[in-house]
C-alpha cells in the first residue's frame, strides 16, 4: 500500500520474532504434556490388550511395541526425534498415525469453531456496540442479563436442549451425527472444510447439508462465548466513546452511523480482536462436550477418547496442535492488529 515504508522485511522480522519467542513456550508444552501423560494412571498396554484371552505376554509385547518399557528420558528423546520428523506417534484407538488423524479431524474442528466464532461475533458485536452506546439503559441491563444467561448454561445442557428441541421435537434440524448427511458422498477434499470444498465442487446440495449440520453445534458453542465477547466489545466501545476523537466527530456533525461504525467500532475492534484470539483457541480445545454431543469428528473429542483410554500419542499430539494453533492464531491476530491499527506497525 504505502510506498514509503518497506512492507516486507519488518513484517517477516515480526513473524520471525514472534515464532522465535514462542519456541521455549512450545518446548515447555511438549515437556509438560509428556510428563503428564506418563504420570496418568492406567497402563495403555493393559487397556489395549484386553481381549478375553490376552495374557501377560501380549501385554508385554504391546508395551514393547509402544516403547513403554524404555526409560523415561529415552522415551522423551525418542518422542522429540519423532516430532522433528513430523511423526506424532500412532493412535491405538483409531489405529492410524496421529498426524493422519489430526489431518483428517482438524478441519472438522476448525470449520465448527470458525462458524461458531462467526455466529458469536455476529451476535456479540452488535449487542456490545449498542449496549455500550446506550450504556446504563434498560436495554443495556437486558443485554447483560441475556449474556449472563447464555454464559451460565453449561454447553452440555444447551447442546442437549437444542438437539431435543430442534431435532426430536420440532424436527427442523438434521440428525446430530457429524458433518454431513451420511448418505451423501463427501465433496472431494481440498481444504477439508466442507463448506469450502462443496462450494468449490459446485455441489450445493452437499453445501446445504453441511451448513445445516453446522448450525446447532456452532450455536451451542457460540452461546457460551457470547458473554465474554459482548462484554469485551461493550467495554472497548465504552472506552472508545470516551475518546476525544469521538467528541470531535460529533462536533463536526458526522452522521451517527458513521460515528458508530467507522469511528467507534473500528477502533474498538482492536481489543476485541485480541479477545477473539483467546476465545478461538479455547473454543478449539475446550468444547469437547459439544463435539461429543453432536458426534462431531473433531480433534477435541478425539483427544478426549484417547485420554480416557490412556492413549498417549493423540493427547500429546492434540495439546501440541493446540499450542501451535494458539501461536499461529496469535500471530495472525498480531498481523491483523497491524493492519487495523496503523500505530502498531510502526514500533
Amino acid at each position, binding site marked *: 500500500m504505502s510506498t514509503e515504508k518497506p512492507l516486507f522485511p519488518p513484517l517477516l522480522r515480526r513473524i520471525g520474532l514472534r515464532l522465535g*519467542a*514462542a519456541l*521455549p*513456550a512450545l518446548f*515447555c*508444552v511438549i515437556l509438560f504434556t509428556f510428563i*503428564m*501423560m506418563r*504420570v*496418568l*494412571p*492406567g497402563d495403555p498396554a493393559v487397556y489395549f490388550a484386553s481381549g478375553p484371552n490376552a495374557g501377560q505376554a501380549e501385554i508385554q509385547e504391546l508395551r514393547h511395541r509402544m516403547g513403554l518399557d524404555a526409560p523415561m528420558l529415552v522415551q522423551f528423546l525418542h518422542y522429540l526425534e519423532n516430532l522433528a520428523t513430523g511423526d506424532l506417534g500412532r493412535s491405538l484407538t483409531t489405529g492410524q498415525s496421529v498426524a493422519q488423524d489430526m489431518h483428517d479431524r482438524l478441519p472438522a474442528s476448525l470449520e465448527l469453531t470458525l462458524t461458531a466464532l462467526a455466529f458469536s461475533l455476529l451476535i456479540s458485536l452488535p449487542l456490545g456496540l449498542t449496549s455500550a452506546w446506550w*450504556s*446504563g439503559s434498560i436495554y443495556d*441491563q437486558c443485554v*447483560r*442479563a441475556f449474556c*449472563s*444467561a447464555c*454464559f*451460565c*448454561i*453449561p*454447553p*452440555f*445442557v444447551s447442546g*442437549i436442549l437444542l438437539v*431435543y428441541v430442534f431435532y*426430536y421435537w420440532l424436527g427442523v434440524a438434521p440428525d446430530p451425527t457429524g458433518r454431513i448427511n451420511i448418505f451423501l458422498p463427501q465433496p472431494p477434499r481440498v481444504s477439508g472444510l466442507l463448506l469450502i470444498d462443496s462450494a468449490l465442487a459446485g455441489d450445493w446440495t452437499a453445501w446445504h447439508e453441511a451448513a445445516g449440520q453446522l448450525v446447532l453445534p456452532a450455536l451451542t458453542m457460540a452461546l457460551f462465548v457470547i*458473554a465474554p465477547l459482548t*462484554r469485551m466489545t461493550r*467495554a472497548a466501545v*465504552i*472506552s472508545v466513546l*470516551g475518546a476525544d476523537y469521538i467528541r470531535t466527530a460529533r462536533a463536526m456533525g458526522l452522521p451517527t452511523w458513521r460515528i458508530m461504525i467507522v469511528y467507534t467500532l473500528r477502533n474498538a475492534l482492536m481489543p476485541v480482536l485480541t479477545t477473539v*484470539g*483467546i476465545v478461538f*483457541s*479455547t473454543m*478449539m*480445545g*475446550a*468444547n*469437547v*462436550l459439544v463435539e461429543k454431543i453432536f458426534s462431531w469428528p473433531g480433534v*477435541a473429542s478425539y*483427544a*478426549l477418547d484417547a*485420554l480416557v483410554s490412556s492413549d498417549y500419542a493423540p*493427547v500429546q499430539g*492434540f*495439546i501440541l496442535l*493446540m*499450542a501451535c494453533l*494458539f*501461536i499461529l492464531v*496469535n500471530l495472525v491476530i498480531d498481523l491483523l492488529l497491524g493492519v487495523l491499527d496503523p500505530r502498531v506497525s510502526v514500533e
Partner: protein
Amino acid sequence: MTMTDFMTRFRRPDIGRFVRRQPVAALAFAGLSAIVLLALLAPLISPYDPLASDVPHALLPPDRLHWFGTDELGRDVFSRILAAARLDLSIAVSAVAISLVAGVTVGCFCGYQGGWLDRVTGRIVDVLTAFPLFVMAMALVAVLGNSIANLIYATAIINFPFYIRIARSEVAARRNLGWVEAAHVSGTSPTRVVLMFLLPNILPTIVVQASLNLGWAILNAAGLSFLGLGIPVPTPEWGVMVANGAHFMSSGRWWLVVFPGGMLMVTILCFNLLGDGLRDLLDPRTRS
C-alpha cells in the same frame, strides 16, 4: 481513587445507591444470599436424607411429599439439591480461593519485578490460558484420582494462570504510578510496597474477578462431573444430577434435570451478574 471509592460504596448508606445504580446486581446479590443461606441451613431444612435410597418410590414426579420428585434410586431431589448447593458452593469457593492466593502471589511478584522473569512468566501464562483448559482439568482429575479434593485442585490449577495474569497486569499498571514511587522515596522496601501498597489496591479488582470466576468454577466442576470426573457417587452435586437426569429426559422425567439444572444456572447467573455489577461500579469509564 476508584478503589477507595469502591470500598466506600459498600458502607451502609450506599446500599441504597448500589441498588439504584445496579438493580440487576443487587437482585443477584439477594439471590445469592438466599442460595448460600439455603446451603448453610441444608441439614436443618431438608425433608429427607439426601443419600437414603427408596427404590420402590423411584422416579416419582413432584408432589406434596417430594417437592422436586425423586430420582432413580428414590432419593428426594429437593434434599439432594440442597446438599449439592453446599458442596458446589464450597468447591467453587475453595478452588477460587486457592488459585487466587497462589496466582496473586506469583502475579504480584512478577508484575512488580518486571524483567525477563516477568516476560517468561507472561508468555507461559499466555500459552496456558489458551490451553484446552477443560481437557487439562480432565487430565488432572484423571491423574490425581476421583475425589472432591482433587476436583478442587484441578479447578484451582486451571484457574491459576488467570489470576497470575490479572495480578500481574494490575500490579504492572500501578508499578510506576506516583504513589508507588512516592513509597520508594519514603524509604519503603519493595516487599512492603507490594504488600502494603499494591496488594490492597488491586484487591477490589481481584475480588470482582473472583466473583465472576466463582460462577465459572461451579460450571467447570459441573462439566467435569457431567463427564463423570471428580465427584464420587452418591454425593449429590448439581452437574452430576443434571447428567444423570438427562438420561431420563426422553422418558419425560423432566424434574430430574430442570431443578438441579435450574439451580446451577441461577447460581452461576447470580455470580456473573454480581461480578458484572461490581465491575461496573469499579470501572471509572462507565461512570460520569
